[in-house]
């Protein structure tokens, strides 16, 4: 894990069109972006696409990066926006439903791939079990605050929402999830 100073050196190099430095930045943050994208979109391929989109946007707007914020916060902002837009478009498209996930859809190849696919499918099912009815905004706030464990101030910087709006979305998301849990518990 690089420290903030090393990251800043890489950023300076990237600003001079150094793609090798950018490759190092991608290697450092790709897992963070993939994790966020996967938790929001619950689809491996979609998450990979979002990682690409995010880093292309990072490359194009490196000059706008404000050093007052941590680089990870800035990456979260771009990734959050990219995934939020995708969530919204999936919500409005008829084939974009993320329900009905089943382990039967797994394409198995090698042993390692199989294990990875299983982990991802289980995680996908686990997340969607209670969150598939959340709005994109609620899902984004809930993922950033509750799952990623970010501070409210960071969520404010990433989403551009006020603290009140964040709290309200978080409250609604928790409420929805608890209703789902109650329904599930009652059915057992």
């Amino acid at each position: 894990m690089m420290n903030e100073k090393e990251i800043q050196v890489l950023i300076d190099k990237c600003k001079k069109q150094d793609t090798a430095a950018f490759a190092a930045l991608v290697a450092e943050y790709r897992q963070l972006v993939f994790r966020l994208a996967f938790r929001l979109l619950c689809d491996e391929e979609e998450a990979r696409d979002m990682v690409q989109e995010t880093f292309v946007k990072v490359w194009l707007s490196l000059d706008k990066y404000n050093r007052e914020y941590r680089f990870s916060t800035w990456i979260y902002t771009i990734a959050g926006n990219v995934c939020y837009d995708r969530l919204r478009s999936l919500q409005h498209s008829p084939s974009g439903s993320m329900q009905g996930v089943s382990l039967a859809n797994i394409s198995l190849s090698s042993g390692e791939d199989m294990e990875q696919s299983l982990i991802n499918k289980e995680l996908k099912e686990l997340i969607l079990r209670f969150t598939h009815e959340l709005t994109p905004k609620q899902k984004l706030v809930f993922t950033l605050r509750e799952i990623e464990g970010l501070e409210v101030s960071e969520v404010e910087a990433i989403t551009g929402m006020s603290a009140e709006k964040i709290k309200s979305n978080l409250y609604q998301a928790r409420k929805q999830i608890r209703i789902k849990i109650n329904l599930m518990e009652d059915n057992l």
Partner: protein
Amino acid sequence: MTKKEDTYEQWLEKIKITEPCLDNPEELTNDILNRIDALPSGNPSRILLFVSRISGIAAAFLLCFLISETVFFPQDKQFTEQPSTANAVWQGKASFLPDDWNTESSFLEKSRYLSEQWKEYKKELSKRKAFFLSKRISVENIIH
């Protein structure tokens, strides 16, 4: 803590600790770099920028020069300083005779002198007009 609360906490904890697996991360990095390489370069070379700035400044100076030449007619060096009498003629104030004029001269002589002056004035005027006209045509040609 109720059972339902417990379920919520357990569910959340499981999501938190389960990290999604990124398959073939190096391939993903290469894909990103390939996409970046394919992007049109946003930063033109510094030399090109410098040359464009310099030519911009030069063009601005040239434009200012042309405007000043067109709007504010300068004193033509081609025409030398005229004697006060000729200037007076040029300004249309040739109603007087030179100081060394013989007051005894006849009316005919006066008339001849003044008519000579008038002819000279008209000749000078047409010469100037022709010069300004040619100059204006050449400026218009440059602009268009």
